[in-house]
């Protein structure tokens, strides 16, 4: 009679360490951020509870200008979904068709994912350097001197210049996810479609892409939430400048937290990011919902 209880107790005891870690590392900081977002706090002393004032200020303050940062993040998310993912999908489809040197191509495309964003950022700073950078040197060498810019210092082009390395860095990551999905697809499906009269392009469009739909969903979620949370590359390249032109919610949050010592407001942005990521993940899941 006591066996089921003892069995459940065993399960609970085995799960307890993981539960403690999960609560301690993930849930507790979120809960604390939620609490601090309702306070005025400089990181020292006792936080002063101010209700929703931080939220009101966040969306109305022109000095913080969260809407500009959000607009940049959304643009990054849209470009990730519309450029980065289709490009990764094309590469995955191509490489999965027994291309000669398949493994080498995979390794090369995946390499930027393995390298630290700081290193990649430094590399692109060199490329964009107005004096000796490869980009301007190339433009000058082909007679396009008028196209040369101070790429990371000109507020009109700085964000565009930052987007290139950010999108480029994670193409290999999404490509590998999709490649694994395509490789996991039974060869019979492709062969059956070919016998039915499909061309290779039709096989990709009508069979392969629908088959890897769950992986595409994960990729879209990662691309969108990753764009909302994006921080490191922008921080290295421009730190949100010039004149906040490349500001993202995360860079704004760091500046508020560590430069202006506004821990309450920084936490407000953190909570907003968590909510946004959660909402977008839900919406994407809904959009990809399959007929059961």
């Amino acid at each position, binding site marked *: 009679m006591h066996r089921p209880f003892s069995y459940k107790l065993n399960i609970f005891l085995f799960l307890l360490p993981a539960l403690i870690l999960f609560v301690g590392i993930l849930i507790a900081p979120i809960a604390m951020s939620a609490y601090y977002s309702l306070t005025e706090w400089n990181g020292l002393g006792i936080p002063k509870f101010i209700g929703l004032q931080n939220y009101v200020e966040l969306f109305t303050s022109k000095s913080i200008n969260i809407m500009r940062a959000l607009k940049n993040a959304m643009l990054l998310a849209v470009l990730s979904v519309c450029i980065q993912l289709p490009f990764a999908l094309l590469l995955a489809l191509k490489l999965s068709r027994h291309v000669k040197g398949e493994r080498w191509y995979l390794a090369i495309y995946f390499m930027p994912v393995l390298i630290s964003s700081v290193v990649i950022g430094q590399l692109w700073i060199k490329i964009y350097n107005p004096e000796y950078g490869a980009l301007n040197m190339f433009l000058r060498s082909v007679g396009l001197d008028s196209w040369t810019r101070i790429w990371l210092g000109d507020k009109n082009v700085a964000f565009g210049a930052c987007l290139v390395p950010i999108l480029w860095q994670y193409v290999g990551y999404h490509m590998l996810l999709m490649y694994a999905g395509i490789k996991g697809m*039974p060869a*019979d499906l492709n*062969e059956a*479609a070919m*016998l*039915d*009269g499909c061309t290779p392009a*039709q096989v990709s469009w009508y069979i392969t892409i*629908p*088959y890897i739909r769950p992986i595409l969903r994960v990729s879209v979620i990662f691309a969108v939430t990753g764009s909302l949370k994006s921080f490191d590359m922008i921080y290295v390249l421009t730190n949100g400048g010039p004149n906040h032109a490349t500001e993202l919610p995360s860079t704004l949050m760091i500046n508020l937290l560590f430069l202006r010592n506004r821990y309450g407001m920084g936490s407000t942005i953190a909570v907003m990011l968590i909510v946004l990521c959660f909402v977008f993940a839900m919406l994407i899941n809904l959009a990809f919902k399959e007929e059961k």
Partner: protein
Amino acid sequence: MADMKVKQPKGVKLDHISKIYKDPKTGKDFYAVHDVALDIAPGSFVTLLGPSGCGKTTTLRMIAGFESPDEGEIYLGGEPINALTPNKRDTAMVFQSYALFPHYNVFDNVAYGLKLRKVPKNEIRDRVEKILGLVELSGMEQRMTNQLSGGQQQRVALARALVVEPGVLLFDEPLSNLDAKLRVQMRTEIRRIQQALGITAVYVTHDQSEAMAISDQIILMKQGVIAQMGSPMEIYYKPNSEFVADFIGECNFLHGKVSENAEKGAIVSLPAGKVAVRTEKKRNPGEACEIVLRPEAITIGDEGMLPCRVELSCFMGSYQNYHVRVGEELVKITDNCPLNKKIFQTGEQAYISFDPECAHLL
């Protein structure tokens, strides 16, 4: 069903085709299929049978166009097809894994090939409904494939292959994933539908009972070459080698020497005695030979042709199973309907007999 005859079943001719692969371990080339030549008549059901690695699936895949022969030419309906891609050949295939598109329902899976061929919508609907009726899946059009049982999925796969009215229908071990009972049921269904439509079918299996049950002709393969081809009865009763005899059903081999040629066969001298065996080919006296005997062709009694000692006697319901020692050789006997017959027990002495017509000399 009369209006569902295929347009024109096509014959298949394999003109000395070979396929060479590289052994990944040794790096050396080897023949997966070697010099296979055969003619498949339009409307016939031919099975490629053999153990794993014998080249049967490679041969089928060459007909489908997924592999290209390194030597020889394949003809479909008299036309050479080596240069054609799979979608340009007039074939359809039922796969071992069914290969149903998981994101399509039953109707869309079956209609897929017709849509690609730009068949008008009304005609697609009519043809899909008819073919689903033929495979007894009417009313399941809107179900997703993961809502079907293994047998139903196999029927959808069959319907999808049939609906495009191919000249030749190819089967790659289509029943391997089904349980034993369903396998028997489905193979009967496949044969019924093939005969009803008059379609040419090439079927790959390693299950000899399946091959016997459904084929007009069996092509038995071993290590890339054809070991024997013929009707199921020919292959069963007139095997041309120990491999064929052993692969198709259970078999006993009695080793001896030809003693003399008789009027309708030969007298074979065995260590346990002399026996007459029917053979069409004259043998040289003194030549070593093997007598192939099926277990059900042998009877056991107090009198007979060769003395034996019973080593195992086991009641199996519909038959009594004996293992007896004849000289040095172990012989298996299936004695059907053992009721009212004398049952020999382990250790008893007895005699075995057989009809010379049912023995085959190798």
